[in-house]
Each structure stands twice: as structure tokens, then as C-alpha cells.
């Protein structure tokens, strides 16, 4: 199978076994994959554990766009980025985890900036409910400890 591939193509295998054929220049936008390729410890198929096919497809889409549009206007890329990161909270966190794990800096920055924009202008209560998964009744009953730290087991 690998003989039919062009030399500068790589296969990425997601955690649920789906395979993606990606040009090497796109794949190495991930520092983790770049290191594997440079150390020549990678065969043509690179396993990408912890990232499922859905998310991997999105990451590849982002990297492809960024690779192609290097010469294009920066403003085009900006609109693409802002549309790309405009997703539901859950998909956003999965993407962030993937970007962090695979070390794709541009994607991580774009995503983090987007979450920061979502946080901006919200009250502490609102942030606790929307981003920390607090329930409304917890907020109401804990209102009197406003300035005392809310300890919470995060793991």
C-alpha cells in the first residue's frame, strides 16, 4: 500500500482506526508529528491516539487551509479562523485537547482566543455555570461565600 503513495504523503490513523492521507507539509504543522518524522521513527502510518476521526478531520482541515494560504491575504485566513473556531463548547474542548496534544500552535492559539472571547464580559456566576459545569442551585446557595474560594475537586 505504501508503494502506491507518493513520497511526501503520510497516513494518520485516528484512535478509532480511521486513516487519513495527508501531505507531509500539512502533517508536520503538528510539532509532535514533525518530531516523529524528523527522528525517522515513523513509518508511513502514524497513529494519532486520543484523537478520534471527527476531530482529526477538523484539525487536518485547519492545517491544510493554513498551509495553502501562506501566500494569500492574512485577512482571508483570519475570517477562516474565526469561522473555524465558531463551534459548540464540547467540540471546541475536544479540538483544544487535540491541538495541545499534537502541538499545533496556530490552532491552539485560535481556539484559546475564541474561548477567551466567550469568557470576556461574563459575570463570575455565568462563567461558573457555563464553563465549570456548576448548577444554578449551587450558585444560589453558595452566594454568601462570594469572596471565599470555592474549593472543588477537579479530578
Amino acid at each position: 500500500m505504501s508503494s502506491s503513495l507518493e513520497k511526501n504523503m503520510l497516513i494518520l490513523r485516528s484512535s478509532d482506526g480511521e486513516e487519513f492521507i495527508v501531505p507531509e507539509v500539512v502533517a508536520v504543522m503538528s510539532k509532535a508529528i514533525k518530531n516523529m518524522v524528523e527522528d525517522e521513527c515513523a513509518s508511513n502510518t502514524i497513529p494519532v491516539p486520543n484523537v478520534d476521526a471527527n476531530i482529526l478531520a477538523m484539525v487536518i482541515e485547519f492545517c491544510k487551509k493554513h498551509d495553502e494560504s501562506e501566500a494569500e491575504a492574512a485577512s482571508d485566513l483570519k475570517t477562516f479562523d474565526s469561522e473555524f473556531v465558531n463551534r459548540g463548547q464540547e467540540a471546541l474542548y475536544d479540538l483544544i485537547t487535540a491541538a495541545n496534544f499534537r502541538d499545533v500552535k496556530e490552532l491552539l492559539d485560535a481556539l484559546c482566543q475564541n474561548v477567551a472571547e466567550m469568557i470576556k464580559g461574563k459575570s463570575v456566576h455565568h462563567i461558573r455555570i457555563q464553563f465549570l459545569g456548576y448548577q444554578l442551585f449551587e450558585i444560589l446557595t453558595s452566594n454568601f461565600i462570594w469572596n471565599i474560594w470555592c474549593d472543588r475537586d477537579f479530578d
Partner: protein
Amino acid sequence: MNAGKVSNGRVSCTRSCSNKKKKSSIPSLPNEIIFCILAWLPADILYSSIRYVCRQWYNIINDPIFIKEQLLRCTTGLFIQQKRTPYRAQFVDFGKMNVALTEVNVPFPNTVLATCDGLVLFRDKQDTLHVANPLTKQSLIVPPFDCHPSYGLPYFSLVYARSTMECKVLCIDKPYGCDVYKCMMITPGKDHAWKLINTNTFSDPTCRIFHHPPVFVEGLLYWGSLCFRCVVAWDIESEMFYEFPKPAVQSKPCIFHFVPMAKSLSCLVWSILQAVFDVFVLSDPMSGEWRKLYKIELDVQKYRLNGILNKPVSWPGQNYFVPFAWADNGEVFLCLSETPGHYVAHYVKTGETLIVGSYDEDGWPRFRSNFAYSLVLLPSRLERP
């Protein structure tokens, strides 16, 4: 659920919801990602609300590494202050094409002498110098400086060295009856006395270039002046001076202005006879290489009609505009039209010129660039030797 239970001598909020934890919550993300997300938020929001969200976030925001990272991403705006009591201060943010003006809620006892990375330097009623962070309300007394004020001297500059996380105060003074300008500095919270900086390497032994205050860009202080061929730079890390030439222009009557633009120094050359600004950018501070960026032509006749300029011409080719800042990565050029008058914003790409404000009603304010709220910490007290 028993919120506010006292356990181990501290009040804690125990929760019974750990079993119904939702997947889509930030806590499932590791610390380093929350770090990246929070670093994009402006310091005033972080300080006033975000850090109260939970203990994890509080710890991240208080981390010196986070403070440094946040500093790299914040956009600087202008710091405007009234010249007399109550010394009201405002912060003008030009970040996203729209001008946002916010009040700095600190009762300053006097005018602010210098600002840098969210810190301000001011003198109180007893003439004691203070360095303070107006956001965290933390302040530090600067050891007294013995001088005899005259002709706008001595003046002070405040710089913040990001790598060592120290602020330094620089003072330029010309002692009475002496021709030589002296440069003194102190690191508040570390030094106990002012020390003299060696200026022997200067081509001009009297250091007259120090007469006008410097501009601070990315770890370097720059002095530039009309009468000197050189620009003098001071590296705040190494505390050393060096010189390099000004941008080369044909010999015609012109005035030089040095203004910080994003992360480099820009030099605006105003040609007196043509009402044109030539904009140069210092591409490499070490070699002193200038690159020509724009030519800004200003239509003086039009501005007379739409009220940007309103005083009669005193002499032909008068310097109507005093540039003081760049916004939006060098796309918007801000200047001051004839004093007292207006702050004017000129969009370089579209050629539009707008009045962003006029401050002539309640005393002409002092404006300074290089301000942004930050979480920068000051050393808590002077360590005794």
C-alpha cells in the same frame, strides 16, 4: 449539599456534584490550556472578576509566568491625565479600530511622570516618588533623589525589564552650574541609592541629547533629537548605551519625531515645506537599520474647512501636527493638532482623518503612550541589607 462547611480550619465549599460532572466543562482541560485561554484576556477583567471564578484559575492568574505571558499579549493604549486637580486619569484603548475610553479609578495625588507595562511613576504631595500598579493598587516608594529642579529637569523614565521582572527608574538631570547631563538610575525594591550610569562612550560628551524625554520600545529606551545626527539607545537589561544614525533624508528643512509603533521604533520626518510625513521604522535596533514604510500626505486646506485645524496660519509650513502614537499595528496614526486642539487619528490605508477627542475644556491633559493594564507585581518591601 453543605456549602461553606469549615474543615481543617478553613472554609470550603464541598460539593456533591462530582458524580454528575459534565464533559463540556473547562476543568476537564489541563492547567496549561486554561493558562493559554486566560492569557488572551485583558488584565483588568482578569483582576476584577475572572480570578474569583475558582481556586485553580486564581492560582494560574497569580503565577508570575502567567503575568509575563499576559504582558506579551496585551495591547497598549494611551494614558491621559488632567494637568491639575483632581488629576483624573483615563485609559484610551485603540485595540480594535474603535476607540474605547475608560476611567482609571485611582485618586492620583499629582500628575503621572511616566508609565510602562501597566506601572505608573508619580510624585505625591510630599515630593516622594512612588511606583504603582493602578490595577492591583500595589505601590512602592522610590528612594529620594537629591536635585535642584530647573527647566523641566530632572525628568524620570520608568522601564520594566520583563526577563528579570524588575522595574527601573531612570532620571536625567543637569546639576546647577554644570554643562553635562547626568543619567542616574535605581531599581526600586532592590537598590537603596541612585547610581550614575556611564556615558563616556558618547560622541557628544555633554549628552545634550538627553534634553528631551526618551521613548520606550521593547526593552530599549531611545533618545532622538532634531539637532543630533545620532539616536541614543539604552538597553534596560545590560544597562548600556549605544548610538546609531538617524534615517537619512535629503537636506531640506524637516523635523524628526520618534514614536513607538507596535514592537519597533518609528521615526516620522515632517517636511516643513510640503506638509508630508515620511515614516521610517527601525528594523534592527542593534545595527540601527531604518526602513521606509509610508509617506503620509496631509491636506492642510481640507482640515481648515472641516475644523481639524482652526487657528490662522502663523508662518508657512508650520508644524501643525505633533505625532504621539500609532494604533492598530501602525495602520492608524495619532497626532495632536495645534495646541490646544484635537487628538486626530489618521487611517493610513484609507486616508481618512478623524477627531478622536479634544481635551481643551478642563485643562490640557498629559498623554503618554505605552500603557496597558497589567498584573505586574512589585517587590513587596525594601529588603534591608
